[in-house]
């Protein structure tokens, strides 16, 4: 089993966020809010079995969803943000994200 770390980063303002990995809910939390001074709201670590897990991030009140299939051989960290245009966007990294 491998681990995938999902960081909820910029743009979250009192949102209810649900994250599913391979159809299994791994995270559900209300009032998710980005701490602007570090650009991070929350972090989830999910155990994944296959090489390309199906990740879905949903913001319930805003009715937004983002679906991803990161390749675990090169991606261990996923950053999800709500862009200024109101769309969910993601970043992938083999290394942990750093926050300041």
């Amino acid at each position, binding site marked *: 089993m491998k681990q995938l770390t999902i960081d909820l980063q*910029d*743009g979250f303002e009192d949102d209810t966020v649900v994250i599913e990995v391979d159809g299994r809910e791994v995270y559900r939390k209300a009032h998710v809010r980005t*701490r*602007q*001074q*570090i*650009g991070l709201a929350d*972090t989830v670590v999910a155990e994944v079995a296959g090489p390309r897990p199906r990740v879905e991030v949903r913001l319930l009140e805003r009715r937004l969803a983002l679906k991803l299939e990161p390749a675990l051989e090169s991606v261990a960290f996923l950053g999800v943000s709500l862009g*200024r245009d109101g769309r969910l966007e993601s970043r992938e990294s083999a290394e*942990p*994200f*750093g*926050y*300041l």
Partner: protein
Amino acid sequence: MTDKKFTQTRARGQKPAGRQGTAAAPRGAEPGGAAAPARSPENEGLFGWPWPLHRTVSGLYTWRRPKWQLPKVPSPFPQPPEWPVGPPPIHPSGAPSEEAAELASDEAAAIRLPILPVLHEKEEIRLDVDGRYPQMTASGTRYVGLGGQAHWVAGLASVGWRTWAGAIWYRDGGLAFPYTNVAIRALGSWWGPPGNLLATFSGGGAPTMTHTYTYTSRHFHPVEFEFDTVENTEAVTTYDTGSHPNRPETLPVENLSIEQVYDRAGFRVTRSGGDGTVPLQGAGANGTWSDAEMHDAMQTYWSRFADRAQWSLWVLFAARHDIGTGLGGIMFDDIGPNHRQGTAIFNDSFISQAPAGEANADAWVRRMRFWTACHEMGHAFNLAHSWQKSRGTPWITLADDPEARSFMNYPYGVDGGQTSFFADFAFRFSDPELLFMRHAPARFVQMGNADWFDHHGFRQARVSPEPKLRLEVRTNRERPQFAFLEPVVLELKLTNVSPHPLLVDGNLLAATDRMTVILKREGRPARQWTPYARYNLEAEPTALAPGRSLYAPLRVAAGINGWDLAEPGNYTVQLACHVNGEDLVSNPLALRVSAPAAYEEERVARDLFSEDVGRILAFGGSRFLTAGNEILDDAVERLPKSRVAIHARLALAEPDTCAYKSLELGEGRREMTSAAADAGRIRIRTADVKKARAAMDAALLERPAEAAETLGHVGYKQRVDRYAAWLTEQGERGAAAKCGDLARKTLSKRGVPAWVFEGPAGSEARASVA
């Protein structure tokens, strides 16, 4: 050499009498590192040279009204002309020219009226036109009495030798400050100590005001730092800029200190003298720091801790945060009544892990730790990350700058990563950040004052120094005060202030997606108003003659973010939009929402501020949001004479004015299918003319003055025109004419000019004389 009129108080090169040296060497200086140099900022000029070689004029200047001098009003007699734009005559002694002396003498020419009470009055000007990273800006604050204050900011351009002028693009504060332009001349000789400033304020319909300001400091604000270090941790407060080869070629090689970074940003930096060691046990059993533990440590070990705003900041150098190695530092103080007083840097994190293959690992690590300290301290000045400027609670239209070479941007977040960043980084803040730190109202920047992320972006609008258009937001009432529950409707006015006709989009003020509207309740973070819907309107080119304006109502009571103007209290509203290539920023409008006057109001309030009601009011009515309609019915029944009842009646009446078609489908959740397969049908609900007319008459005609005030003049005229047209369609021409007459009389009594009523019924007032 000294000015004739403005005599220096000490001989050249002599320290001010009675002043002590500041910035004692810190106790906690790192081993082998240089102690912070002892400095006397007041006698340090450009490049660190002492007077008399001080060459810059930027800095803080002050004017005070003598304690017992009565306030002056401008003289009704002819005044000396303002100085012409161009090099003024220079007296060989450096004294002000006869012209300047004449201008300054208008103070003496003014009539002094016995206006009581006698008030303490003081003004400051921060001139920022030379020295380090000049912003070509002047800002000022006027203090009157015990709490009256007005703050202004102007962009400047050079208009002559040591003379600058520009438009005031920002105003803040409860004190009236009508001026729209400022002209500033630096007095004194260019090669001697700084002289005084002569500033003339004009425009805005107010008589010209000229004051002479005394040079006070080359810095814009003071700030004090205290560096505490957890035991067995190193504090990095200096960095040798030549130690790592990846740097700009033009970067001076020096042992740069944190104090110097902020000195160059315009602050007179001092140290508290309380630097010390914090025991690790404060981090608890796990040895890593939580935000709460850091708060406790700040209260215990910071020698300046106080529950109040002050220009003082605590910095903790520690090993690791509870989050882990992924957090290199944090401005942790975002709770409680006084934010932004404490920051922390975590050495045992990714900031101390040089990339694989880094040939100068030690220098890389030290640079990153130093950078992180300056970055986290920047948050305490209410600076956001470079890519976040448009988020959260922007005050003015902002632009994100993810490629900025600033302390506030992540080095690894730019194209090309940290290598690219540091190859082009001058160890400074960006110009917009400096503009904010130096010239924003002090409470936005000062630690412990405005909340974190409040006003951080302040301004990145490209406001022209010679604007052609002026954007105003206002209320059509004597005082900008709204009753509890009253939906707030404001009026927008766009005026051509240039001498030439301009072509603008006539639908501009109705296109809320092209403007940024900020609402701020006193003591709370500002929020951006987001309407329920954005209208994509075809541009309607409209010629706007000089002095003429466009108008539109702005209904900001509720939006996607909720009801931001519902609670009793003081608010500020400001907006910005981009028109014809320039950013326009409106005046900040201060308004008040009153407290409930009766129990019934509180009872209605429990349900009124819902999304359904907000949408019904925003869209002018709904047949389908039945729950919201019931709440509005209840409001009308309980508070029939209230302002909210006017809005509620109009919203309830609108759907009854015409036939409605609705698609009715079966109940319950079904898979998507055709309407026919789902036994769907179109139901036509006919208009209820009698009911609609009763509600419209009650809303618009029973108390017309109140309706005009609460709907706004433009909004009221629009509604009445629409109602009159509807009455005509129903065959009620007489009623339509009476309706129009009543509206005309009502608005005329409120000062609306007669031309507004010309044109066919139902037309909107668009262009007008300003």
